[in-house]
Structures are given as structure tokens and as C-alpha cells.
């Protein structure tokens, strides 16, 4: 131990990104043979960063998230988590899906949230339930602990899914258009609550969306993608644009810029 060169551990951690994609190329099998979904996409996600993958449908943003989650094997390129190659799905990368049926209907909301703690972290039942309750209180579901998912509204289901992901304390949260199936008002509230949670807990997030204003609001960095096949247009920081800046000229200017970037490149290829 003492023989090793002394490097502050924080520095080591910041040197290795939480997630790292290099030359990521993804294929999927369609009706007419294999299609290229994503071609040569590279990015890093540092600890505490919120990276948004943004692009039109067909840009492969969800496929990239699936590759990060370990559900999809790259045709070429690599994906790493904390320096280790991603070989399959695991509880260090918890996914929040768009679909409302991601909650297991046979478990109460509390037991849904406790489930990953039980199976992935082997936490004893009582402690897992206590941690689940705490996570559910944080997302504003204190009154729905014993409810079954089918009795919840869409927004409450997504809140429960977010609580389930947070309670598992993953290295990185992966969100695949989690608010896309919600009405505008609910979506807005959930965006705000997600940002508040992010400020409180400082989790690392990869967030997929096709809504530009949501991307600018949620992300600290945007990664813009063009479609058919998905490839990088641009990647840039939007730090400093949050809830307070929503609707301000500076915010709207970034939204317009992103729109132009996406449109200028995307239009030629659609």
C-alpha cells in the first residue's frame, strides 16, 4: 500500500469517467436484414454530470441507452463503466423506461422500489422497505406506499420508477424518455422535481429525449444526434441553464440554436 505512488483518490476518480463510449456502432436486425442504427458515436459522462442524448426519431438515442444498459451488444466500438467494459445489464446502471408498465403489477409501490435492493444488493427486507419508503417520500409518493401500480396515474407511476432507480443507488441513472407519455402539466412538474432531486443528490444521469426544451432544461451537457444512421452532430455544455432560467431569452436562444443544429443537418438526411 505504502509502496504505491500517492495520488489523491478523488483525482483518480475524476480521471476515469463514469461512462465512456468510444466509436460506438450499433446494428439491429430488421425485416430486411441488418440495419445500422448508430455509427461511430463517442462521449464521456463524468461523475455528477447530466448528459442528454437528443435527436429525432431514428437517430438511435434509445439504442445507445440500451447499449449503456447492457441490453444491446455494440457491432463495433466500446462502452465502459468506471473503466470496465460493459458486458451485460447490471444494477450499477438502473434504467427508467418510458412505458408505464415498468412497475411490476404484482408488487405494491413500496415493494417495487425495494425490489432492486432485495435482488441486486441483497438488502434485508425490513431495511429495503425502509429505504423504499424514504425514496418514495422524496418523490412525493408518501401516500401511495401500499398502493398497487394499476391504481396510480401515469405521473405517479413514473415517480415510483424514479424512486426505484434512486433507491438502488446506481453509479449512473439511465432514463429513456421517461416523461414522453405524460401530459404537459405533469411532465413539467416531474422535470422540476427531477432537477431538484439531482441538486440534492448529485447523481450521474444519461437522459434520452426528443424534446429540445426538456433537453436544455435537464442536461448539463447535450449530445445532438442525426438520424439514419444515428451519428454525432455536436456536443456542448449547457451548464447554468436550469429551472430558474426557463423561459428567459438566454434559455430560448439555446433552444433555437439546438433546433437549428438539429434541423440543418437532419433535414438533408430524412
Amino acid at each position, binding site marked *: 500500500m505504502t509502496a504505491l505512488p500517492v495520488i489523491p483518490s478523488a483525482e483518480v476518480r475524476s480521471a476515469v469517467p463514469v461512462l465512456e463510449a468510444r466509436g460506438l456502432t450499433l446494428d439491429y436486425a430488421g425485416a430486411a436484414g441488418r440495419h445500422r442504427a448508430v455509427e461511430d458515436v463517442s462521449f464521456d459522462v463524468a461523475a455528477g454530470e447530466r448528459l442528454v442524448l437528443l435527436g429525432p426519431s431514428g437517430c438511435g438515442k434509445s439504442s445507445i441507452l440500451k447499449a449503456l*444498459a447492457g*441490453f444491446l451488444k455494440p457491432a463495433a466500438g466500446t462502452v465502459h463503466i468506471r473503466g470496465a467494459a460493459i458486458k*451485460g*445489464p*447490471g*444494477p450499477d*446502471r*438502473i*434504467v427508467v*423506461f418510458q*412505458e408505464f*408498465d*415498468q412497475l*411490476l*403489477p*404484482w408488487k405494491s409501490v413500496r415493494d417495487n422500489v425495494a*425490489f*432492486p435492493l432485495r*435482488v*441486486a444488493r441483497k438488502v434485508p427486507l425490513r431495511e429495503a422497505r425502509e429505504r423504499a419508503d424514504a425514496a418514495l417520500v422524496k418523490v412525493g409518493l408518501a401516500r401511495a406506499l401500499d398502493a*398497487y*401500480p*394499476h*391504481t396510480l396515474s401515469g405521473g405517479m407511476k413514473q415517480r415510483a420508477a424514479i424512486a426505484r432507480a434512486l433507491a*438502488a443507488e446506481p453509479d449512473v441513472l439511465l432514463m429513456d424518455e421517461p416523461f414522453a407519455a405524460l401530459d404537459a402539466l405533469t411532465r413539467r412538474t416531474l422535470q422540476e422535481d427531477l432537477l431538484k432531486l439531482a441538486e440534492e443528490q448529485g447523481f450521474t444521469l444519461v437522459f434520452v429525449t426528443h424534446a429540445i426544451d426538456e433537453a436544455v432544461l435537464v442536461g448539463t451537457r447535450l449530445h445532438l444526434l442525426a438520424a439514419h444512421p444515428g451519428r454525432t452532430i455536436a456536443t456542448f455544455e449547457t451548464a447554468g441553464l436550469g429551472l430558474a432560467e426557463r423561459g428567459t431569452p438566454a434559455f430560448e436562444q439555446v433552444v433555437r440554436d439546438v433546433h437549428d443544429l438539429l434541423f440543418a443537418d437532419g433535414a438533408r438526411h430524412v
Partner: protein
Amino acid sequence: MSDSLASDADLAGAGRRGAGPSTGSRAHDVAGGTPRAQVAGALAALWQITLVRRAVVLASLAALWQVAALWQNNPLLFPTFTDTMSALAEGLRHEDLLPASVASITVLLKGYALAVALALVFVSVAIAVPFAKEVLLTLTAMFNPLPAIALLPLAMLWLGLGEASLLLVMVHAVLWPFALAALTGFEQVPETQRLVGRNYGLRGISYIALILIPAALPSLLSGLKIAWAFAWRTLIAAELVFGVSSRSGGLGWYIYRNRNELLTDKVFAGLVTVILIGLLVEVLFRLVEQRTVRRWGLQR
């Protein structure tokens, strides 16, 4: 026919008249207001209870049966309801109706368990291997329309007059419908729930036990229910042909034997027992459904 209908109408009328005094006395208990309206309201509320309506239907049927049998006046061919009930009580207390029921249920459970286990093995292979699924679907399509009882002559030829023959026809009755329901159930598990399970690192047995089986439970339960009904009918029919085992021959055999001795009330008692056991199992399934798939909103 018209006579029995008329007598039924009389009976209903008598019932109404009979109810008169009691409703009258209840009306006196109610202080003030409009007692008649309150009694009518209470009766209407009572009528909303399914169990009450069912009981009324059953009582009417029993009364109809009693009157028709009395009118026929031929106990050798058509015993009355009361005779049947006393034969049932007697059979349960002194004779071999209870052992016969136990024998039937025992054979049934053996065949049922064997077939369900086999079906689960087939379905597991079918899910893993696309060609095996093709084989299973073809076999199911072929054998589903074939009544299990039609295999009994062949089963007797191959396996003799014994439990093995009964098990063979019952496995046939249960295996195909349950395998089809289970396969459909597992294939209909939502993709998101599969991904959630894999996301938490579940694999193999724990993935099947914690994700696939609960998610497919509506189909599994309805498959079990259909298969149970097939098995029960097939078993009783098969027992009519021969009585197995040294001690007792099962309910089918009980019915057949008593028919030969023209103890028609016992034949009726046997039939009633078959129905009662069927209803009991139905209730058990409903209880399980209420505690699981209905509670989870997977079935309305």
C-alpha cells in the same frame, strides 16, 4: 312440462304468500316512516347480493325437481330431491361415496400434477428453441380437438385396466390446453418488465420465478382452470368404463355400479357429488384469483 311450470308458478306464489307474515312483523318493528317501502328497500338490497340470487335459483331448481319427481312417481327412474339428498347423506356417512370421491380426487391430482409438470418442461424448451415451439404448436393443434376419453380404448389396450390408463388420458386432457395457455402467457410478458428484471441482474431460475411467472400468472391460472375442468370430466367419464384400484373405483365407477343395481337415488347422489366437487374447485380458483391477478389489476 306445462304442469311443472304451473306448479312452479304456484310454488313461487306460495313463497310470496309465506313471506307475507314475516315481512309484516318486520314492518311493525320499524318505528314510523313508510314500513312497506323500507321492507321493499331491504329486499331489493338483499337481491343485489350474488349469493342470495344464486340461492334463490338453486332453491327454485330443487323445488321444481321435487315436484316433477313426485308427479312422475317413479323412484326407479327419477328419484326426488329429498331422496337424493338422503342418499347423499347416507353415502357420505356409511357407504363408499366418500372413499370413491377421495379415490377420484387422488387420481386426478396425480394426473394433473404430472401433466402440468410435463407442460412446463415442454414450454420451457419451446421458449428456448424456436423449432421446439413449432413442434409444440403443431402437437397442440392436433391433440386439442381430440377428446381425451377417445384415447381410453387405446390406453386400456396398452396399459391395461388400471390407474396407468386413467393417468394417460388425463395427462392428454391437461397437457395440451395448459401448455398452450402457459406458452401464450410467457410470450405476452411485457418487454419492459423483462428488461427491468434483467436490469437488476436477474438470470435463469430467479428471472423465471421473480419476473416471468408472476407476469404470466393470469394466463397460467386460466390455463390451470381450463385444464382442471377437462381433467375432471375426463376422469369421471373414464371411471364409468372400469373401476380401478383395489379399494374403491372412484365416483364414475360408483355411479355406474349403482345404475346397474337400479339404485337411482345413489346415481343421483354420485352426480351431485361430481358437481359439488367441481364447484368447490371453482371457488378455490376464484379465491386465488382475487388474491392475485384481480388484486394486481391484471384481470378484471
